[in-house]
């Protein structure tokens, strides 16, 4: 233990009375931190800590009279001698042990457009996005002339408005999907001639999706391209693309495989109402295992809709219309539902996708 003795406080005084301790045993103190107030014949004086450390022991209590040179306070550890480790000033001593973690130099990020500061200032002034400029300067840099050229081009186009909210989210998600997914698409038709009038299209599509997942579970899965892992999921949570004036929403219908038709209908109605009222909680917009896009309600027969990671499949239903089909060798007019299945070929094989689609079509062809 290192003992700090009461220093000479001047004026020839030989002792001082402890008035008040400012620290307690076990406390960490820094250099110059006030330890104690003592009273001499003249005044009350604060004694600062001569060095940093942990208080081990106080040698007096309030009211005690301590002689100059007598032990005042003990610090843990170290030698007896008060080694300040300097002859000028006060060198702070810290007890922290710092470890450095090996760091990896990251690969350089994608290179953005190079341009000298004056050129950038010009681009800002002319409201030209440098990514729209074809650089012709040295080192692949954009020149002022390049910027002016782009500016006159863009003058013919309207102003740029930043994307916000749902549109922004759609742009980000689709960009992400486009970068990752190895998309492949199969299209086919389902002959729904046998449907009774008033058949609930969306519910039938959901039931058919379930049939497809039962036939080929690997399309109801999550895939992570970074870690090359796949989770085939038993529960079928279908994300349903809903178009609203605010933009595209994809709320999730949970556990579609275990719900009956009435329940599905109730769920769909509630979902649409909530989306329109913007009441859907964020967690209900997440975690789908497969997606349904009923774009045919608006227009279009076939499409290659976008698979949203981590899911691996999206079923698109096109516009139902009457078509001439061959029945027993003779033409007939039947109602036909066009189907498009886009799948992530990293996780789903063509055969799996085909069998899935066949099961979907088989489900849809039934009267109910």
């Amino acid at each position, binding site marked *: 233990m290192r003992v700090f003795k009461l220093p000479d406080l001047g004026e020839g005084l030989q002792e001082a009375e402890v008035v008040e301790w400012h620290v307690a045993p076990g406390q960490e103190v820094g250099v110059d931190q006030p330890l104690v107030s003592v009273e001499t014949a003249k005044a009350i004086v604060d004694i600062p800590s001569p060095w940093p450390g942990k208080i081990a022991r106080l040698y007096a209590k309030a009211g005690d009279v301590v002689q100059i040179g007598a032990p005042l306070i003990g610090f843990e550890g170290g030698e007896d*001698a008060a*080694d300040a480790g300097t002859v000028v000033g006060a060198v702070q001593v810290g007890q922290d042990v710092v470890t450095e973690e090996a760091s990896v130099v990251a690969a350089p990020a994608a290179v953005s457009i190079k341009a000298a500061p004056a050129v950038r200032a010009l681009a800002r002034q002319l409201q030209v996005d440098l990514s729209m400029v074809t650089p012709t300067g040295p080192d692949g840099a954009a020149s002022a002339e390049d910027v002016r050229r782009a500016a006159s081009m863009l003058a013919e186009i309207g102003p740029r408005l930043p994307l916000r909210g749902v549109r922004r989210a759609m742009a980000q998600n689709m960009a992400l999907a486009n970068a990752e997914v190895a998309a492949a698409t199969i299209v086919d038709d389902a002959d729904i001639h046998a449907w009774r009038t008033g058949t609930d299209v969306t519910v039938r599509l959901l039931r058919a999706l379930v049939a497809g997942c039962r036939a080929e579970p690997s399309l109801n899965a999550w895939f992570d391209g970074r870690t090359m892992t796949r989770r085939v999921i038993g529960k079928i949570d279908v994300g349903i693309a809903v178009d609203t004036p605010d933009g595209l929403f994809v709320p999730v219908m949970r556990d579609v495989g275990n719900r009956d038709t009435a329940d599905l209908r109730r769920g769909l109605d509630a979902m649409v109402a909530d989306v329109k009222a913007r009441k859907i909680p964020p967690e209900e917009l997440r975690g789908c295992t497969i997606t349904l896009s009923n774009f045919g309600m608006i227009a279009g027969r076939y499409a290659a809709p976008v698979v949203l990671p981590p899911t691996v499949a999206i079923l698109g239903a096109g516009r139902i219309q009457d078509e001439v089909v061959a029945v027993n060798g003779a033409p007939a007019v039947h109602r036909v539902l066009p189907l498009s299945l886009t799948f992530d070929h990293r996780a789903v094989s063509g055969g799996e996708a085909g069998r899935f689609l066949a099961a979907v079509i088989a489900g849809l062809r039934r009267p109910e």
Partner: protein
Amino acid sequence: MTVVASFEIEYLQFLDQLGRVSQPLPGFARDPRALVPLYRAMVLARTFDTKAVALQRTGQIGTYASSLGQEAVGVGTVGALRPEDVFLPSYRESGGLLLRGVTMEEMLLYWGGDERGSDFRVPRQDFPICVPVGSQASHAAGVAYAFMLRRQARVAVCMLGDGATSKGDFYEAINFAGVRALPAVFVVCNNEWAISVPRALQSAAKTLAQKAIAAGIQGVQVDGNDVIAVRFAVERALDQARDGGGPSLIEALTYRLGDHTTADDSSRYRDAEEVKQRWAHEPIGRLRNHLVEQGAWGKNEEEALHAECTERVQKAVDAYLAVPQPPPEAMFDYLFAQLPRPLQPQRTAAAQESGHG
């Protein structure tokens, strides 16, 4: 063998270690009452010094270099100076500075970390405390040269430590002072310690005074704890310099009874027993013995002096503690005679940081 040069170094002492007269006193010292001002100056110096150390221990000034034990060197030296002379101290010279008219408040400001402490009200042309060891020696030579060029009867007096005599600055300065016969006096306060390096490791020369021989100037050794001897030797050197007789070097032998600074602990490198023994030779007790023996001092005077010194020191401390912190923009003041335009934005920024705007 043909001897082309040899030298002798005179040693001067008037009061021995117990304060007994060891040789006839010089004129100014014959009347003991004439020595009382020197005694008072030494006691004030030690009182201030003790207080300064205590102030550091209680966090009110920064690192301080105590002059404990060597009061006679500063007081004896400055006691011989005229107001128009210029004094260039080292950093261990509280007693000398006080006698020169530097106020205790100024000294506390300096050691408390405020440049205003070097703006001396009284000795306007004296140099401030010098920290780069020995570098003040060539300043003294420059000041002395100015005196000589202008034919002024003034002398530059420079204080140095034993460690400083190892510095190139020191040799260069006394060499120049010698070859130009400058009106300068170099007082080497040999307190036997340069931080932890003892005199024996500092130089093989038998005396530091004989370094003067190498510069072609006078060198003399005195008992630095005998304020009469110091005063006598310095006055003699001043007279010689003032008369155009050239510079001299005085080695004053004393002992550093305190630590190098308040952050140093000399028990790490020197024997407590040795320090205890040297206390017996210290300068204040020695002169007191002589004064008492001469009937010029007594218990009443001693008590009155201590009370007076304590009060004066406390007043100075109170005044120092009442000085407000300088504003940050003060860093820019006095950098040049006129602050150059490129620095104006920095000054403004520093002021705004602190809310002075």
